[in-house]
């Protein structure tokens, strides 16, 4: 995908450090996401990719540095406050409620909305965008396949009509067909004008749907560029796309 230029900045992380207990995982992260832009974060295991998302969604507070969203410093805000501002986080592990129906799960996506009519309207919109929601609405979410569950998670993430969606390893554990379907949905999200910050081990697919990408190594951003340029970067290809991988962007 071509990079957005001259776009309005939606999210900026400046010199962010964060971690658990006394240890630091993020050691000064600088990162930005523009409105309507998809950014893919790649890097080795333990580099802190998921921690970046947690720091943005409020599951983890930065120890230093700032997280600015839509012009406001949200560093000290709770995850619920950030949710209310339009930041939705879809975590890596399966995040559906397995004993609740698909419909109830999607409804939970609008939990902080107080207007039932708005919730109902959003659910209808989401069901139109993701047919699995209407098709399996009465099924227990735990009975769905991994790929179906991920589609419902993506559907649920739209209930608040968010400005920024944080996706943590959406393709992990999925079969190739489901993976293709999930990346198609992610590309669809980007086309609706929402910003997406995607963490993905499957770097080739992640970079292919991203306008821009960043490589995170040992808690700092080591490299940034367009998704296409990183796909064509021999060093990135060697490290993250598999040795001897084609330097040309594949695509679905």
């Amino acid at each position, binding site marked *: 995908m071509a990079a957005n230029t001259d776009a309005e900045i939606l999210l900026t992380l400046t010199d962010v450090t964060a971690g658990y207990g006394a240890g630091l995982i993020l050691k000064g992260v600088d990162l930005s996401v523009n409105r309507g832009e998809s950014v893919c974060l790649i890097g080795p295991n333990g580099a802190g990719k998921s921690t970046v998302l947690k720091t943005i969604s409020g599951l983890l507070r930065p120890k230093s540095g700032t997280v600015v969203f839509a012009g406001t410093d949200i560093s000290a805000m709770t*995850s619920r406050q950030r949710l209310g501002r339009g930041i939705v986080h879809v*975590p890596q592990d399966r995040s*559906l409620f*397995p004993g609740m129906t698909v419909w109830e799960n999607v*409804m*939970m*996506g609008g*939990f902080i909305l107080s207007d039932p009519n708005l919730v109902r309207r959003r659910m209808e919109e989401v069901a139109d965008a993701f047919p699995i929601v209407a098709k399996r609405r009465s099924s227990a979410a735990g009975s769905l396949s991994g790929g179906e569950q991920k589609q419902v998670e993506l559907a649920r993430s739209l209930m608040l009509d968010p400005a920024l969606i944080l996706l943590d390893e959406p393709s992990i554990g999925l079969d190739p067909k489901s993976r293709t379907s999930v990346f198609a949905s992610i590309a669809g999200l980007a086309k609706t004008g929402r910003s997406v910050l995607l963490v993905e081990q499957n770097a080739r697919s992640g970079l292919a749907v991203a306008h821009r990408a960043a490589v995170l190594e040992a808690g700092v951003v080591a490299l940034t560029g367009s998704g296409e340029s990183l796909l064509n970067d021999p060093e990135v290809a060697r490290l993250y796309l598999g040795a001897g991988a084609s330097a040309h962007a594949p695509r679905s």
Partner: protein
Amino acid sequence: MHALIQAIILGILTGGVYALMASGQTLIFGIMKVVNLAQGAFVVLGAYLTYTLFVQFGMDPFASVLITTPLMFLVGVGLQWALIRPLHSDDVAQLSLLVTFALALGVEGILSFAYSTTLTNIQPKYANFSWTVVGYQVNLVRFCAFALSLVVLAVLYLVLKRTKFGRAVRATVQNPMSAQLLGVNAQRVSALGFGLGAATAASAGSVFGMLNAFNPGSHYDLISRLLTVVVLGGLGSIGGSVVAALVMGVASSVVSAMASPIWSDFTFFIVLLLVLLLRPRGLFGARTRGAL
């Protein structure tokens, strides 16, 4: 055969009350992973509150549920806020055992001071009234206690299934981090859940006091039975607890009638041992886990 069926009827009616007590225990465990060792003490406290309303104000024990249940709900919310909330989440399972046991001892001590340790019970005029239905005796109080338990359980079911709060509770039970990411306030859900657990104990306590002689130390026997029911039903499954309570009620009653009342108390633990040997997750642990 007549004695067996009579024992089964008695067991079902008794089991319904245990189901009510255990549903609160299960709810609290499901939300907070807290094994509430004070649940038996809450039942006894509910019984004493009912006793006071009956003796001092002449209030019917069944009607007193309308006062004791909301009162204990508020007490439960307050206790969660004061005692459980400060515990660090990583240690809550272990520390809560100590805290809730201390709470149970505290309730026992206060009740002993206020009411003495002499056994008492609540005896409304209709306490010994029974119907004969196709040759079998059905005690009015036991029947109404069972009916009350069904009504409270039905209300609990509707709250969990049909309300926004109920969805938040089930979401928190099934995936706490995901619930938080969707804006559920886990602390608020925990406080209200603990309150609901205490409220079910209070409503069960009102009828417990009519069915059994009790004193402040009765919670020891109660909590051992409740833990048996909750483990047997599969930790965290209210439906499982209800079925387990009915199974245990019937088994205990049948053993009492067909063998000896002495063996009745052991029935709970023998059945528990057998089920855990054959199904370590309890009767419904695997199938309905997360289905609170």
